[in-house]
């Protein structure tokens, strides 16, 4: 970043975003290339881009029907969770906020449990819808409980905790009464991308794309939410309206991600900090970069999930937790350094 004479250097450099896009592309390519069935990298590349000499038969199906949809879903879910996490951290002035803050996780978990424990077997096929509805309803309930629809961040947070606890309690009760549901609910809660197929990709991509486009469009103005409401007004934004839009879009992205892949943790907290820490910038213009970093992070984690303990699947939540937990220590250490 060069400094022109008489002018300060740019705060945000879009070359960072371009670089991140490149990383994501390479990571995705690598992820599609690895698996228990070994297919050469060249063949994978040729198959993906429909060049002559690509794989056929079983290999081709493995690439295009097993690996590719899973990688694409990883990109969608990873970018949804990372972006939502970043937005929530800004809106709530809380660096430890995550996408599941306003009860979305517990609501979705309750929805999934209801679907799984329902006595009508065909309802369990509608699990994504139940999880989605549960997540969205939980967030809406948090808004209503906190008193006013344009509630301030702190009371929203508290009502989110209340709603989340209540939903978890109901879920636990249901699980106790339907022990056969324990295993499926548990593995759903751990989160995984194993259910990835092109139809899941199709519906989840619509909602996640809408949510992310909205968030990217308001990203620049989100910087105003880092200040008090009066300061935000003076700088020309309506912080109450902006908060609603941001939280609504982030919740849509989160609820979709959760209904497609369960509760994958840590992505929403870790990735925004990673990007902000590496770039030394907190501006929300980093949102596109954060989205792509989240996508790459999850695709890599999923690669680990399906290869580290092959031929068994490691729950992806375990890998993100292994990375996430020490990460918190690093964040903690940096905060202490800064305040000294």
């Amino acid at each position, binding site marked *: 970043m060069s400094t022109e004479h008489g002018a300060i250097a740019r705060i945000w450099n*879009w070359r960072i*975003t371009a670089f991140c*896009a490149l990383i994501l*592309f390479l990571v*995705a390519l690598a992820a599609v290339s690895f*698996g*228990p*069935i070994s297919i050469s990298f060249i063949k994978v590349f040729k198959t*993906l*881009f*429909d060049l002559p000499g690509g794989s056929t038969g*079983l290999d081709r*199906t*493995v690439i*295009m*029907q*097993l*690996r*590719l*949809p899973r990688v*694409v879903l990883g990109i969608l879910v990873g970018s949804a969770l990372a972006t939502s996490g970043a937005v929530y951290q800004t809106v709530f002035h809380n660096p430890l906020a995550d996408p599941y803050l306003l009860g979305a996780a517990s609501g979705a978990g309750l929805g999934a449990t209801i679907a799984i*424990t329902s*006595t009508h077997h065909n309802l369990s*096929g509608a699990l994504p819808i139940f999880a989605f509805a549960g997540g969205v309803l939980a967030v809406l309930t948090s808004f209503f409980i906190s008193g006013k629809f344009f509630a301030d961040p702190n009371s929203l947070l508290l009502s989110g905790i209340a709603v989340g606890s209540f939903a978890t309690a109901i879920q636990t009760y249901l699980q*106790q*009464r*339907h*022990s*056969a*549901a324990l*295993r*499926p609910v548990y*593995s759903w809660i751990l989160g*995984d991308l*194993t*259910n990835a*197929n*092109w139809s899941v990709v199709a519906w989840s991509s619509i909602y996640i794309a809408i949510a992310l*486009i909205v968030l*990217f469009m308001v990203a620049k103005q989100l910087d105003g939410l880092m200040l008090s409401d009066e300061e935000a007004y003076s700088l020309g934004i309506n912080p109450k309206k902006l908060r609603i839009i941001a939280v609504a879009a982030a919740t849509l992205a989160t609820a979709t991600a959760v209904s497609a892949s369960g509760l994958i943790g840590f992505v929403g907290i870790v990735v925004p900090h990673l990007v902000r820490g590496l770039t030394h910038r907190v501006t929300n213009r980093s949102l*596109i970069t954060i989205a*792509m970093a989240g996508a790459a992070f999850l695709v890599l984690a999923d690669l680990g999930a*399906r290869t580290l303990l*092959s*031929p*068994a*699947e490691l*729950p992806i939540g375990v890998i993100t937790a292994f990375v996430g937990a020490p990460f918190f220590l690093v964040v903690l250490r940096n905060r202490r350094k800064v305040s000294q």
Partner: protein
Amino acid sequence: MFEFFLKRKLVRVAPALILVSAFLSSAPVAQASTKPTRIISLSPSATEILFGIGAGSQVIAVDDNSDYPTNAPFSKLSSFTPNVEAIAAYHPDLVVLQSSATGAANVQAQLLKLKINVFLEVTPNNITDAYSEFVALGKATGHPSLALALVASMKSQIAEIIAKYRKKSPVSIYHELDNTLYSADSSTFIGQIYSDFNFANIADAASGADSGGYPQLTPEAVIKANPKVIFLDDAPYGESSSTVATRPGWSGISAVKNRHVITLPLDIPDRWGPRMVDFYRFIGQATAKIN
């Protein structure tokens, strides 16, 4: 900037989208009419059944939880969290998959996409359903008559055992899953085996608490019910007749006083293969003298 990113994504997805539409317009996979020769079993019970109906030589791999018969081709394939690609790497022509496995529906769909046939094994609720699955497996693996013969043999052996050991009047029993007093009521598979012997299951009083058939009982309820026999399914977790006797208030229970606390053998109660006969025999013999 963002349009550039979006275009990038579309370029990558386009070839896949073309393939998806091609696949959707192709004919569905036809069922195999010939005998499968490369079978993978992802269910410990199915493994036992396959070897019991004469299909053992067609089995190329069994999951990591299977342990019987001891000469089965064990592998690291997971029965609970199957990895489709790893399964496909064996080039099987039939996969026996538990419907209770994580994402079973999706695993099945993906295997079918790879033109690999799938036998979805549903955990039976009772022995009649179990026999039906034996027969179905027999048909799927090319041994229909051997399967029928096995079923007939099991039926007659079990009928003999029941005739010999069935109690004339109900004998109260308590089946313990763990030391927090989770039990199994008569709606479960094992509960029905107990019913065959005319045992009265004390957990039935609490069956409303769990639709799956595994309610958690309170110590007072067990003491009050005063079962004549206690079956321990939690020996691997350190429970035995001596530990049960030390529980406060339990020494007065009929089963404890008369030393009718029976430790169940491992595995056999959880499997519903050919060794079910052995389990019936074990129960019958262990409770022969109890009335």
